[in-house]
């Protein structure tokens, strides 16, 4: 009995020893290999960070150049819509449009007053995130349902238009934040925002899905082809 117990203890110690060892007489070399692997990857990570910093610096320089270009006339007096957009983006979130200024998309609308009212009802939603933001949008446009498919058929087309306007505005806000963070080239950002404004105009003026859908596809392609850091 005692002998069996002793054998069991010895055997257990052996199993424990086997399980806790590395089992590799060259473990020192392995650790050296690990160290060399880390050393090899460090320059690559440094290259990426360096490229990112270079791009960011270029974006900052470009914003400065745009601000200087329009410093005499002011953003609102620029003739081209895209250039006005570019000027405002370069000025950043600190830019304050003059009071009474009508949003670009509303200038395209046959009913700019209604458009401005819609913008006013939505503006507090953009500080929110995720599903909270969606709920805010839907509350602002007068919905009592979470899903547009639950809205009465006669009301649905107009509510969908208002909702898509809100979503397009959200995309625009995202672009503006990317520009402020120097994560995107200001010229590329202006192209995207200009396209967004164009689509909002189409929707506000009652164009059908046969025109709006292709424009949305163009916008998505443009977005995907634009280099945006960490997007």
């Amino acid at each position, binding site marked *: 009995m005692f002998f069996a117990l002793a054998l069991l203890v010895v055997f257990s110690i052996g199993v424990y020893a086997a399980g806790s060892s590395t089992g590799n007489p060259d473990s020192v070399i392995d650790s050296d290999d690990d160290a060399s692997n880390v050393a090899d990857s460090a320059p690559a990570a440094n290259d990426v960070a360096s490229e990112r910093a270079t791009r960011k610096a270029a974006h900052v320089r470009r914003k400065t150049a745009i601000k200087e270009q329009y410093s005499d006339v002011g953003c609102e007096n620029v003739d081209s819509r895209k250039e006005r957009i570019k000027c405002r983006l370069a000025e950043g979130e600190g830019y304050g449009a003059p009071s009474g200024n009508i949003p670009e998309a509303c200038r395209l609308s046959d009913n700019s007053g209604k458009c401005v009212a819609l913008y006013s009802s939505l503006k507090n939603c953009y500080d929110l995130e995720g*599903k909270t933001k969606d709920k805010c949008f839907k509350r602002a446009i007068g919905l009592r349902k979470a899903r547009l498919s639950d809205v009465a058929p006669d009301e649905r087309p107009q509510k969908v238009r208002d909702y*898509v306007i809100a979503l397009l505005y959200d995309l625009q806000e*995202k672009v503006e934040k990317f520009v402020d963070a120097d994560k995107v080239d200001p010229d590329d950002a202006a192209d995207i925002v200009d396209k967004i404004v164009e689509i909002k105009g189409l929707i506000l003026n009652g164009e059908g899905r046969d025109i709006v859908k292709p424009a949305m596809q163009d916008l998505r392609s443009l977005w995907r082809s634009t280099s945006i850091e960490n997007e």
Partner: protein
Amino acid sequence: MSKLIWIIVVIVLIVGGFFLFSGGDDDAEVGSGGDIDQPLDGGDTGESIDDIPESEFSNLDTSDDVFDEIDNVIDEIG
């Protein structure tokens, strides 16, 4: 006499049943009262969007989320 009573009872039952199945309640006669139980415009039962849990709504965190949501609804603009 008992036959007369039975006849009266049957007539009362028939007349009462007639009113019962014809929905002869006060709300219908009033007319506008009948609208109280009707859903509001757009099939809405009067609930507020604030009563709906956030899990019922769409996530709009990323640009892909927003583009996908637009794709989901764009056909409804007519």
